[in-house]
């Protein structure tokens, strides 16, 4: 465990020693803040009318969830950028031998890399959640639903991070790793789009799609099936990454 923490800590330190992570965080915060303020402005305009409607939607439905739903789309683009340097960058900078020759095992290297990249992703999610959470000072939010959505986004982010790490292990070119992770992540999210247009919503293809498992979290539904799905995707991707490191040792 100490080796995993060490690798994760080293990656986080290195990420924040460069402008990339700061710029990425700054741009995402700016973009989400802009969306948040527009949604807040629209909400304030219609709020007096909403009071007259029975069972009308509140700030959670009209501000918080749309903002976090928009973040889920952003994560598909951002996470590959956060993971592309992970192992591909190590190979490109000739630093991977240091880790491979340190006798700490391939899976622990991969887990350390995953944890290092996921911390940045989790920070992005938590910063985004902080924005609607501030509304709690002025209105009443459905906190249970916000917690469920945050959990869903973290699980979704973890899966995307693991896919990014696996892609980063398979190539020495960070840009290629990012492109592959973006394509695989997008495919997994949109996998059942065609089926849904056809009216199929309970088939294997729906189950395989990430959006099927992410959507319930936005409604405050936390199901063990959805949690297990994201954990399985994460685990499978990390095992593939470890397998790749193994093949680097055995096949050169």
């Amino acid at each position, binding site marked *: 465990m100490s080796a995993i923490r060490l690798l994760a800590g080293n990656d986080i330190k290195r990420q924040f020693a460069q402008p990339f992570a700061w710029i990425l965080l700054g741009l995402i915060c700016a973009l989400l803040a802009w969306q948040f303020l527009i949604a807040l402005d629209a909400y304030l305009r219609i709020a007096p009318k909403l009071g007259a409607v029975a069972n009308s939607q509140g700030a959670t439905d009209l501000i918080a969830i749309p903002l976090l739903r928009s973040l889920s789309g952003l994560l598909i683009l951002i996470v590959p950028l956060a993971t592309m340097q992970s192992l591909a960058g190590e190979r490109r900078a000739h630093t991977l031998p240091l880790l491979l020759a340190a006798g*700490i095992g391939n899976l622990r290297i991969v887990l350390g890399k995953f944890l290092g990249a996921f911390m940045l992703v989790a920070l992005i999610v938590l910063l985004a959640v902080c924005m609607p959470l501030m509304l709690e000072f002025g209105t009443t939010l459905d906190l249970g639903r916000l917690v469920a959505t945050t959990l869903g986004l973290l699980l979704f982010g973890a899966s995307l991070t693991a896919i990014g790490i696996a892609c980063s292990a398979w190539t020495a070119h960070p840009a290629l790793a990012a492109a592959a992770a973006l394509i695989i992540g997008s495919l997994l999210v949109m996998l059942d789009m065609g089926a849904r247009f056809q009216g199929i919503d309970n088939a294997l293809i729906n189950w395989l799609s990430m959006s099927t498992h992410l959507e319930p979290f936005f409604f405050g539904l936390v199901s063990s099936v959805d949690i297990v799905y994201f954990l399985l995707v994460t685990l499978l991707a990390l095992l593939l990454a470890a397998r790749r490191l193994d093949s680097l*040792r055995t096949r050169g």
Partner: protein
Amino acid sequence: MNQTPPVLSLSNVSRQLSGRAIISDLDLSLDRGEVLGLLGINGAGKSTTLRMISGMLAPSSGSVKLAGLDLYEHPERARRDIGYLPEEPPLYGELNVEEYLRFCARLHGIPRTAINAAVETAIERCELGEMRRRLTSLLSKGFRQRVGLAQAIVHEPALIVLDEPASGLDPIQALRLRELIRALADDHAVVLSTHVLSDVLACCDRVAILHQGRLRHSAVMSELDASSALHVHIERDVDKEAWMRMPMVASAQVIDTRRWRIELSRDASAGDLARAINEAGFGLLELRADNNALQDIFVQIAGETATVKAAA
């Protein structure tokens, strides 16, 4: 009798990459206090051998043992017992020298309480004191190499593996590095790869010449020195017959008419030859050990491919 196993032993190690044999049936062993030089031209298989020794690459067959234990059955041994400097020093450019060495010390399992002392020792041995706060990406080639070496010794491993450590260094830096490697050999076993003969002559106790993935020659340097010829510089022009008349001369090879490479017969000494040269009135100007024995062997082995290609 209970005999301590060597720090490193390779037996029948072979390695194929993409179906091509890179290393075939390699046997090597190394004890603490020894420096082994792996000598070979580019592509001879030196780096692949070192990657296998460092635990980075698994052999296709055969075994790499560290103090008698198979490295691939006990990979955790590598963490404490091997220090590896690849051809390109594995430096994180975002970290300064001290931060980087701290990371390496922890990576190699040094307890937190001992990290400060270990890093200080490595910095001191590699003379990195003035650079300790400098980002590794801003270091010159020589200092990058020194930091790479420092990460390989920071955890005081039993075995230090260095891939072309003097590559790209200026002559002064290369000299300092050789001195450092010699000093490290007091407490560690060191294996280094190089294609530079002077590196081997300057700091190795033993040499193994690799060519086309096979071990072609293995020798102890002191024996090579003892068996090497003498370089003689004289005042007069003489012919080969004049040398061969001396009983202690086994063979004489002309360099120019006043410089000769003389091989002594068994039991004869350089002093005997010096006396004979004076008695013959050749006018001795210089008599020294000729260090070309290793070069001759190396050139002969490395030249085989060229000869075969030329003949084909």
